[in-house]
């Protein structure tokens, strides 16, 4: 099964990289960019076909390694 874990910075955490990208988009003249926050996407191939089991494994992966929950949130999607 294909799955995706998306890790984003919690609100209130400064994101200097996002700010720099935001500035670069403005200087490129891209219209309508309000603000940019940078995050990470992990595309994961999960063995087996049990969605519940897959979600549990991905939650474990996100909590223990993929996200630092002090500063980041994560979202799990099992894409099937």
């Amino acid at each position, binding site marked *: 099964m294909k799955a995706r874990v998306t890790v984003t910075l919690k609100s209130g955490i400064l994101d200097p990289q996002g700010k720099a990208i935001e500035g670069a988009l403005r200087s490129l003249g891209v219209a309508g960019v309000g603000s940019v926050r940078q995050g990470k996407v992990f595309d994961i191939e999960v063995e087996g076909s049990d969605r519940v089991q897959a979600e549990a494994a991905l939650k474990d992966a996100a909590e223990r390694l993929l996200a*630092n929950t002090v*500063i980041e949130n994560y979202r799990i999607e099992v894409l099937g």
Partner: protein
Amino acid sequence: MRSAVVVFPGINRERDMARTLRLVSGREPAMVWHADTALPAGTDLVVIPGGFSYGDYLRCGAIAARAPIMDAVRTHAAAGGLVLGVCNGFQILCESGLLPGVLMRNATLRFICKDVYLRVERSDTPFTRGYNAGQVIRVPTAHGEGNYVADEPTIERLEGEGRVAFRYVGPDGTLDPRWNVNGATHAIAGVLNEGGNVLGLMPHPENHVEASVGPTDGRGLFAGLTQHFAKVA
């Protein structure tokens, strides 16, 4: 003082650290590989040196913090053993949960490689007993992610419990944003854990210990640790 330096792939300051430990404590440290599961028997001090463990992949220190040896380091710390993390070592200690908070990209977005001034906030810890409280020391720093961040209750707790060991200041000891090189919350350069037996700091005191290569302000940290264990023994 029996010290052990933990070596991860991509670490590059372990030999500077080992040299300093040998020079100041008079005893050769053990070099411990990340895949090992135990520290040498009788280890007093575990040091996690600087560098770029695992190429800083995912987040600085994230992968090293989950290496097999870290369980032994956690056990050592839980039993009151001393742990020192410098630079990437500080990042690894934060990622491993031994210290609170996280080290984010420098506010300037630039890698900083220069000497900084630190104010020693307290002298009643094994790590800082070689200094006076309020003393300003000059030590080198070299990092891209040293901007210390934690949520407000954590920062309040750190401040309230006197767990900020070092702060970025000017040469005269005053706080000013221009001396806070990486934009760290409250200019925090080094923090202690709850028990006061785990210290992480971004700058490199191990690189300022010999008069032949410059200032020797970093020596006090290692001399203090050596004295601490001489007294204990």
